[in-house]
């Protein structure tokens, strides 16, 4: 079973992911790709607590993930892969490592220079540049907080 969802979400594992997407996709594991959290055991424990015992959660740096992502995509486990920013997803996708895969932008909140695309998604020029770069790496980016929400297409994401 390939990775069912590549998602960028500042909150990583939270209600929308575990309940909203989880009830649709029935993941057996979450892979969190984040350089800082991969080095922080207490933060990892915190995220594991919020998931419960039935689903595995693993944490990797971007470089570790780049070494393993092909293996994960051909593994049997139903998997969701999460980063908390566009930068990490883009680093993961470099050299067309995730070519043809969709990337879901599920939660980037208000910040410096960011303009609202949807209530859960704010982007600035640098963010839009990263979205374009993801497309250049062969990924297909769209916005959607929950499975039942309307998808936000690339043109809307890139509108300044």
């Amino acid at each position, binding site marked *: 079973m390939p990775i069912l969802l590549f998602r960028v979400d*500042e*909150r*990583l*594992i*939270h*209600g929308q992911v*575990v*309940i909203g997407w989880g009830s649709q996709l029935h993941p057996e594991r979450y892979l969190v790709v984040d350089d800082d959290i991969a080095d922080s055991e*207490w933060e990892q424990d*915190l*995220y594991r*607590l*919020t*998931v*419960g015992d039935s689903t595995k959660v693993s944490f990797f740096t971007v470089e570790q993930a780049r070494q393993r992502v092909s293996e994960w995509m051909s593994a049997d486990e139903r998997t969701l892969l999460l980063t*908390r920013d566009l930068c990490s997803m883009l680093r993961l996708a470099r050299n067309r490592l995730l070519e043809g895969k969709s990337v879901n932008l599920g*939660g*980037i*909140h*208000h*910040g410096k220079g960011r303009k609202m695309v949807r*209530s859960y998604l704010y982007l600035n020029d640098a963010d839009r540049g990263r979205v374009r770069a993801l497309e250049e790496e062969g990924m297909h980016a769209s916005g959607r907080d929950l499975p039942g929400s309307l998808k936000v297409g690339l043109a809307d994401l890139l509108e300044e």
Partner: protein
Amino acid sequence: MSDVDACGVVLGHGAMAIGMVDAARRVAGIEEGALVALSNEGKGPDSLRDELIRIVGEGPVVIFTDMRVGSCAVAAGVALRSGGRRAVVCGVNLPMLLEFAFHRSEPLEELVPRLVEQGRSSITAHLPYADSPV
């Protein structure tokens, strides 16, 4: 008795916390400031964490979250770790908040187990034609 009464922060998705705090105030008459609502609506993890830590101060404080899963529980976990006299209770309900209102002078070590017990025991269900609650 504790030297200072505990305060409570109800942290939840959407408008849930505001509604629960309003209901607790109406039923128990708990004063403003003793029980505070905080929503995660529109907040990223950093801003939610910062606002929560600002509200809880040094404590004693009980942070009530709507559920064990999610950004609210994660923010509460970070606040718990960042020091002060703090406790986190996940899965808040109104009977639990009312128990808090009437016993918040107790030390956290006694108060928190009491809240959990009250919250659990207040959940009942009734099936049609059954003689007693489930």
